[in-house]
C-alpha cells in the first residue's frame, strides 16, 4: 500500500490540448520540410542554388527543433544569446574552410 500513499498527495494536472496540438503541428512542419527536401533532391539540377535551398530548409528545421522542442525561444534572453552567438563562429568556419577546399582543388 506504499504505492498508494505515494500517489495520494500528487495531483496530476490534466493535459493542455492546445499545447499538445502545437507540438504535433511543429512535428508536421518538420515532416513536410523533409518531404520537400526529398522532392527537391530529385527534381532540381545539381548546383549552388540547390545547395543553398537545402541549407535554408535545414536551418528552418533546426530552428523549429531548437526553439520549440528544446524550448530555447521561451528561455531568458541571456541564455538564448549565449547559445546562439558562439554558433556564428561555426558558420564562419564552415564558409572559410569550404572556400579553402575549393582553392585546394584548383591547385591540385
Amino acid at each position, binding site marked *: 500500500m506504499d504505492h498508494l500513499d505515494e500517489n495520494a498527495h500528487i495531483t496530476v*494536472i490534466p493535459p493542455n490540448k492546445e499545447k499538445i496540438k502545437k507540438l504535433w503541428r511543429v512535428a508536421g512542419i518538420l515532416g513536410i520540410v523533409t518531404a520537400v527536401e526529398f522532392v527537391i*533532391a530529385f527534381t532540381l539540377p545539381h548546383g549552388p542554388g540547390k545547395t543553398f535551398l537545402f541549407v535554408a530548409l*535545414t536551418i528552418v*528545421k533546426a530552428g523549429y*527543433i531548437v526553439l520549440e522542442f528544446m524550448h530555447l525561444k521561451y*528561455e531568458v534572453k541571456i541564455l538564448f544569446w549565449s547559445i546562439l552567438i*558562439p554558433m556564428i563562429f561555426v558558420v564562419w568556419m564552415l564558409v572559410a574552410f569550404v572556400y579553402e577546399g*575549393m582553392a585546394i582543388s584548383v591547385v591540385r
Partner: protein
Amino acid sequence: MASSTSAVASDKGLWDGGTSPMGVSYGKLMMWFFLLSDAFTFSALLITYGLVRSSHKAFTGHVSDFVFSQNYWPVPERVYEAVPFLHGVELPLVFVGIMTFILIMSSVTMVLAVEAGHRMDRKAVEKWMLWTILGGIAFLSCQAWEWMHFIHGSEAGSAVAEGTTFFGANLVHNQYGPPDFAAFFFFITGFHGFHVFSGVCLNFLIYFNTVTGLYQRRGHYEMVEKVGLYWHFVDLVWVFVFTFFYLV
C-alpha cells in the same frame, strides 16, 4: 519565504549569487553548455567533410550517367539507394528518409514525455518514454543495416588499382570513391550513432527512474527535461548530417 528571497536579492546584484541569472537550474544550464560544446565537435567533423569534399573533383555529368570512380567524389544519392528486403531495386535516399522520419518522431514523443512530466503525470511519462526508446532502437537498427550494406558493397564493385575489383568499403579502400569518402561516412554517422546509443541508454535510465517512482518522490520531472534536451540535440545533428552528407 518570499521576503527572505527578496532580502537576498536586494543587497546582491543579479550575478552575485542567491539567484539563477539565466532562469534555469544548474543542471539544465550545464546541459545546454555541454550541447554547445558537442555542437562544436560535430561542426568540426562536418566542416572537415566540407573542406575535403570541396578539395576533390566533383562529378560533372548527369546523375544517371554516374559510375563509381576513384577520380571524383561520389554523388550521394547513387551510393545510398538500397532498402532492406528490396534487393536490386534502386530507391535513392528512401531508407535515409525513413531513418530521418523515425528520429523526428522519437523527438516528438520525447517532447510529449517532458510535457507529461510538467503535469506530474507518471503514466503518460512512462508511455512516451517507451515510445522514445523504441524510436531510438529502431534508428540504431536501421543504421546497423546501412553500415552492413555500405561495408559489403554492391554487385558492381569498382577498381581501386589497375586490374582489381573492390567491393564495399573499409578505412583504406572503398568502391564508391576516394578513400576519404568512406572514412567520413564511418566517422560522422558513427559518431552520431554513438550519440543515439548513449541517448537510448539515458532514456532507459529515465524510464526506469520514472517507473520506480523516483521523480514522483522528488516532486519534479526535471531529469526528463535534461535528457530530453540531449535527445533533441541528437535529432538536430541528424538534420544537418542528412543535408550535408546525403542530400548535397
